[in-house]
């Protein structure tokens, strides 16, 4: 009973999504209008850790928490790429994860969107040039949106996902990062 008393006392703590820094999110490819319209209101996300340090994962985890609450935008995380529409990829792609990442991409049904999260996913970050790393995520699978940061804030990740679906409020006119 103490639990429910606490719940009722705290109330809803979700923060509204602010505008944020424009240059954090980079749109690499245009997502088709058809896909954007289909996935606009209900998106299933499969998160793929292609070799990251898990810093980005911790930020992604808070997305489903009460403060950032990705579910209010119709986003939910799923267990299998077959159920997914959007792949959320983190980390520089290591040699061992190159094929699994590719297989995950192939297992996802069309239409699909790929959002790469973190500096490592875009430029390999601090791991650039390492013997264990193949390259950035777009060297393996086509990426639609990059979210920079090490790690990016959960709000930025959310904005990146919504940009990919063109559902970000107040952003209808601006397409690219600048």
């Amino acid at each position, binding site marked *: 009973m103490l639990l429910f008393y606490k719940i009722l006392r705290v109330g809803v703590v979700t923060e509204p999504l602010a505008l944020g820094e424009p240059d954090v999110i980079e749109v690499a490819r245009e997502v088709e209008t058809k896909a954007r319209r289909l996935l606009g209101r209900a998106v299933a996300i499969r998160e793929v850790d292609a070799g990251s340090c898990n810093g980005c994962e911790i930020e992604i985890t808070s997305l489903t928490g009460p403060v950032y609450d990705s579910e209010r935008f119709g986003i939910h995380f799923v267990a299998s790429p*077959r159920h997914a529409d959007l792949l959320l990829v983190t980390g520089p792609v290591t040699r061992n*994860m190159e*094929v*699994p990442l590719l297989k995950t991409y*192939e*297992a996802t049904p069309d239409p699909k969107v790929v959002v790469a999260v973190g500096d490592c996913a875009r430029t390999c970050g601090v791991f650039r040039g390492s013997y264990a790393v193949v390259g950035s995520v777009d060297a393996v699978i086509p990426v639609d949106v990059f979210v920079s940061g090490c790690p990016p804030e959960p709000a930025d990740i959310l904005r990146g996902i919504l940009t990919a679906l063109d559902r970000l409020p107040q952003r209808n006119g601006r397409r690219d990062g600048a």
Partner: protein
Amino acid sequence: MAPELLLLALSVASYAVGALAALIFRGMVGRALVAVGALVGSLGTLALGAWCLATGATLAFAAPWLPLTGLALRADGLSAFFLVVVGLGGAAASVYGFGYSAHYDGRYSLRLLGAMFNVLLLSLAIQVLADNALTFLVTWEAMSLSAYLLVLVEHDQHGTVRAANWYLAVTHAGFAALVAAFLVLAGGDMTGSFAAMRSATLPPATRNVVFLLALVGFGTKAGVIPLHVWLPMAHPVAPSHVSALLSGVVIKMGVYGLMRVALDLLGGGPPWWGGVVLGLGAVSALLGVLYALMEHDLKRLLAYHSVENVGIILLGVGAGLMFQSYGLPGLATLGFIAGLYHTLNHACFKGLLFLGAGSVLYATHTRNMEELGGLISRMPRTAACFLVGAASISALPPLNGFASEWLVFQTLMGGALVPHPEAAIGMAIAVAMLALTSGLAVACFVKAFGITFLALPRSAEAERAREVPASMQVGMLVLVGMCVALGLTPFLVVPVLSRALAGLGGLPLTPIGFSLRLPFSVSGVTGEMSPLLVGVGVLLLGTLTAVVLRGVADRRLRIGDTWGCGRVGQTPRMEYTATAFAEPLRRVFAELYRPTEDLSIDFHPKSKYFVRSIAYRSEVEPWFERLLYTPLLSALRGAAVRVRQVQAGSLHLYLAYMTIALLALLVVARWSR
């Protein structure tokens, strides 16, 4: 000549021709003649039974000039029904057997197989017509012996001889009980005719003794726990069409005998008779399916399911006996109808499953589920037939298993009307046990079908499997048709059954009325359902959904790899095994199974961090062998050793024995004058 006698003569002659042809002809001609003889005989038997059920004709034939009390045959409703069961099972098995026995040519004796197959069918057909004790016992023994010889056909396989020995021993123990039962039942009457037994009045204690002896005798044949140990040994090692016949028809003779003696000849008895049968049925059903779950030998699994289904049949029969003793004839009829319906259904779907298992064995030479897989694409028709059989035995609507289980449930729920709360609560517990049994049967058959047929083949043999010859497919398809037909039309079957039971042991003569659906109103218990309409409804809704989807939804389809978290490649070793599938249930029922686990790991010689192979073996505690049979057998052996001391080998001692025996006999004869 009356058509019944004509059909009977035709069947007998056909079986005889089939048996003789097996002994005379060889190769494919021999096999064909055996199959034709058995098929025509079975069709004749089927026609005879159907004719008698449809027209209500009764057959009567006597040959008193034969030795002892002679042959006496009579067909009433119950016999006619079991003739249908025999005919159906025999027909499907004989067609299938033609193709199946091809791979025995040169390796095992086709003459024994063909001859004994026909003799078995002949003895089954005559047995249900038997109208005196001698005929019944002679045909019973003929049935047991021919079945024993059939089990021995593949004599060099591992475990066959042991299985056959167990079968022979247990069936003769049962036979002894039956002889005793009939002797007591006949009383002083020397003809041993059933008519005399029916009208005789025996003291209650004698009737109880007869009932118990009959229960033991027929229970050994039916495979009731704890008299079931021979079943999972003998049925798997027999040729598959023989297994189908053994499981589908021969064990039903135990049910027939029990109903004949308890209901017809004794005319019913005190409530505890029904209670004992009900209890044995419930225990057999539950334990049968629990042991089946742990098996990964396909045919042994099916054999344990036979134990389970006999349990369900006895639930119906036991409930019927109980209701009869409490004076609720409508519910009693319902119980017997449920039991008989399940008998017919089980003959169909168990026969189908054994024929399917036989096809798998024919194609892959292994019964072990852990080595199979991927057969659905290699043997598509067998897979489809096995699926229908699996769905039927799991009592899924609208197939036949559901129709009869529904009737059993309704019968047991009628137990609410019994005035004694202990009987009513007993029936409630039986309902719960039946529900658990049926849920576990679903689990078991998901395992059996899924591991055997689906996913990737787990061995080279399974990979090389090809579809079986046409005659084997036809045998299976006939039974598929029967499963579907019997499931969709209970409103046709039930009136026939109630007519068959009319007048037996005081049951009401007027049959229960039914309409297109299956409503009934019996002593305040009402229930109604229509599997036909439900089946049509599901089919319609499914088709409608598919049609709507074609118009509305996206139709793109892409072939990809199985999702395995991105690993490279997929091998059969990544699939679930049968042992793994049953593991949660093994844990839940660990107190019953007391599984012993044996894990042996073969390490790489260079480093203990690398493993070459891991072998895991889990055995289930064989309670009945350990607690019942082993002590019994060692006691018998001990007694036998002690008796052997009488055979000292000395001629003088034997002469002394004979003299003493003669003197004793003279004294007894003088005294009883």
